[in-house]
């Protein structure tokens, strides 16, 4: 299969992102054509990313400061969870915490935590403290280790402009409509990002419970540095702060709706990506993470002339594994919150191993780090029955000194870090990318 033309279907952020990334990654011999009128976009007004998403911005040569300015964004240090557990807790994006005497920081923490000598896990993580306090370090071009909150419409426009800048073409007039056979489209490869309908009738669709999210705008979000999940009865709301205002999306935990993912996301020349391939609740993970899983798999597997069976199989393996792990993250929250009596076998194993000895089990294609898992277990008050036997040989003073130093270092860095509102105010006083020559 020779790839001269790739059609990207969808008027949503996923299609714009895919077109931009393909145009940036391929030569001019391959044309990426964006069909923004295809399907019916169901935009979420605000978007959230994980730190790993910065890889795509790096590929697109984006400076995160430009993205924040142009897309009304804020930096995200982590997530605050309210009323899902008996207490509010925060998960910060991971960082390598120091080890001592051959034992990881988390084993030392477990040891003291069991005797109620340690503070909450998140207290030792700078990102979590920044997220809780609304702080953020001064901005750098890549801003590694942090996620973003972005205005959906502005970011989609930003990506479309980037796609065109890198050579993609936008084609409105001949966009396929609902019911068209995508295999017959005039393209060598069709990336379907559209939100035509929930493809539950597809025999490859793996269904999981879910329900629609209703969004409303809020004028002044309290904290620009954290995404906040808040439970009220059977409803959960996600608060996404933006530079100006923010949005709250709410959905019902008990609703018998349907989410899920396709286990055969690449058929013939049609590749499903984003909402065409997977839909999950915000508690599982951001929709841009779903898109990222598909795009990163696709980039490595773009057809190069063979029959493509191996590529299709690998794309299905990597993406379905990634979607499954995201869904399990929601299951983990619900199981620990007492809302899911029978989670999947892998989630049961994760919980069982943490309860047993504080061991964090991670599988292939996980989206969340060991540190984020630890913060979740801690947040729900799971105290392991024991910690590493080998640590019994290390004097408790070593563990105390390690934790004390980490706490002092974290608090010192926190004190040196300005409120994000101040950082954003400075950022927005500078010229936006549209105003810069050559942008």
């Amino acid at each position: 299969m020779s790839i001269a033309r790739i059609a990207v279907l969808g008027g949503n952020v996923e299609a714009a992102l895919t077109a931009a990334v393909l145009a940036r990654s391929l030569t001019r011999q391959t044309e990426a054509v964006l069909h923004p009128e295809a399907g019916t976009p169901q935009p979420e007004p605000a978007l959230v990313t994980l730190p790993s998403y910065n890889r795509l911005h790096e590929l697109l040569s984006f400076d995160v400061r430009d993205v924040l300015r142009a897309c009304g964004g804020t930096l995200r240090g982590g997530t605050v969870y309210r009323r899902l557990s008996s207490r509010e807790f925060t998960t910060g994006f991971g960082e390598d915490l120091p080890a001592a005497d051959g034992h990881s920081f988390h084993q030392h923490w477990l040891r003291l935590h069991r005797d109620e000598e340690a503070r909450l896990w998140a207290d030792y993580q700078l990102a979590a403290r920044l997220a809780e306090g609304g702080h953020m370090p001064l901005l750098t071009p890549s801003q590694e280790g942090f996620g973003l909150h972005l205005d959906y419409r502005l970011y989609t426009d930003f990506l479309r402009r980037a796609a065109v800048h890198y050579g993609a073409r936008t084609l409105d007039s001949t966009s396929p409509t609902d019911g068209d056979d995508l295999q017959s489209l005039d393209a060598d490869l069709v990336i379907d990002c559209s939100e035509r309908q929930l493809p539950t009738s597809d025999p490859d669709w793996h269904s999981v419970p879910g329900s629609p999210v209703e969004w409303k705008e809020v004028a002044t979000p309290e904290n620009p540095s954290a995404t906040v999940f808040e439970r009220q009865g059977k409803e959960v709301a996600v608060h996404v702060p933006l530079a100006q205002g923010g949005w709250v999306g709410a959905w019902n935990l008990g609703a018998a709706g349907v989410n899920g993912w396709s286990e055969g996301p690449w058929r013939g020349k049609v590749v499903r990506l984003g909402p065409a391939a997977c839909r999950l609740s915000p508690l599982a993970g951001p929709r841009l993470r779903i898109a990222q899983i598909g795009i990163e798999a696709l980039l490595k597997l773009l057809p190069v002339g063979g029959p493509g069976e191996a590529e299709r199989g690998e794309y299905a393996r990597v993406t379905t594994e990634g979607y499954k792990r995201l869904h399990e993250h929601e299951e983990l929250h619900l199981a620990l919150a007492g809302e899911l009596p029978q989670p999947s076998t892998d989630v049961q194993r994760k919980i069982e191993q943490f309860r047993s000895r504080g061991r964090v089990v991670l599988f292939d294609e996980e989206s969340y780090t060991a540190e984020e898992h630890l913060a979740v277990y801690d947040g729900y008050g799971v105290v392991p029955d024991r910690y590493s036997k080998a640590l019994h040989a290390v004097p408790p003073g070593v563990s105390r000194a390690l934790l004390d130093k980490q706490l002092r270092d974290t608090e010192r860095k926190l004190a040196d870090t300005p409120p994000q509102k101040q950082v954003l105010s400075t950022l927005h006083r500078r010229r936006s990318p549209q105003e810069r020559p050559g942008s």
Partner: protein
Amino acid sequence: MARFGQQVEKVVIVGGGTAGWMTASALAKLLRPAGVSITLVESEAIGTVGVGEATLPHLRFFNQRLGIDENEFITRTEATIKLGIEFCDWGRIGDRYIHPFGDYGRSIGGVGFHHHWLRAFGGPEAQRICDFSLPVVMAEEGRFSPPSDDPESLMSTFSYAYQMDAGLYARFLRSFAERHGVTRTEGRITGHRLDPETGFVTGLRLDGGREVGGDLFVDCSGFRGLLIEGALGAGYEDWSGVLPCDRAVAVPCESTEAPRPYTRATARPAGWHWRIPLQHRVGNGYVYCSDHLSDDEAASDILSGIEGAAIAEPRFLRFTTGRRRKQWSKNVVAVGLSAGFLEPLESTSIYLIQAAITQLVELFPSDGLREEDCAEFDRVLNLEYERVRDFLVLHYHATERDNTPFWNRMRTLSIPDSLAEKMALFRERGYVIQYKDGLFLEPSWLAVYLGQRVLPKAFDPRAVRTDGEKTKAALTGLATEIRSVVNTLPSHSAYLNQAARVAARG
């Protein structure tokens, strides 16, 4: 009554070979100070297999965790440095390549180095990918210096392991373990005691009517799996359908040259020869399939292939490739050959021992045995064994050899689906499947694919975005730089002599 939930205060290790003394040393260093007593039972009358003279880089970290001085270790075990394995005659007779412990070049623009190499040179006919690997060039030139911590330095692009006398290593560790409080009990095991209600092992019966009791038993008794199989009937999953070699014959010989910093595996009519150069001798052996070769023929073949005078009689081993169905059953943990056997083509025997010990320490049932510990141990170790198995099968399947019934059989053997998918993706487009866990990473798969003529039909289309001529010039410059760095390094022998001098100074 022994049961799940009982406190573990006394560990009994059954068998004193490499697996037994590695386990004893690790537990003594890491758990004995926490109040766990450790007893090792072995009999001088029963020989050990002494697997794994060639190792993987992970052993360095095991030794470091125990606080073992590297120079002393090299001196006491007659060890040499290992930078990789040379495979001879595997793709075709006359082919050779080195599977190195290190990278090939560096990725450019987020696209793997080998795609740019394919684009620039079209394949190994024009320029070997080995020329872009520092450890390959070091190995070929017989030079060595330890890697650098500076990620910008070329010297940071490799790791290294050892080739050592496994018998001396076991003796070295015995001394270490006894110094750290392990009790060694000499005696032949004649039986075991089981708790009649729970089926847990409660003790060992030794010759002379003695008994040794314990809470947790680590079975390092070798192929027979005295406790894991003999007492608990854990079962064995036979993988000889995909890896049919079932015999080995070993013959050490005198050295005739300075030791090379790599192991050699040479394909033979019904299996393969190993050659492992140590400081004081060379270890040799023939792994073969008894369907295609008799023991006498194997002995004759290996004796005619060694370069120095043999210093011992040929020693035969019989094995069935596979793994124990449960590696941790009730209060018995299998470590080493009692847990499974994979032929030593990629020097994985000691690595698998080490992986089991690491998991045992992490999952040590400090406040009582639990079924979830056993299940987690099995999950992690099963994954290790399966991923090593696939990598070994690749060596046999990726061949054009058809000159003997054995190679015809291996070439046409039905392989696991997981491997077939990996090979198809590499053939189509040079894609290497990667997992979070698993021993062999992308450079290892590349080494074997490309070394055994599995050439991609195409490379990643993103590689074309770079300027072709400039990329080719940069690659050529890298090969030149690697060679010039290697030329500044001391010889492997000089490095070993220096280690001996430092060890002698204490």
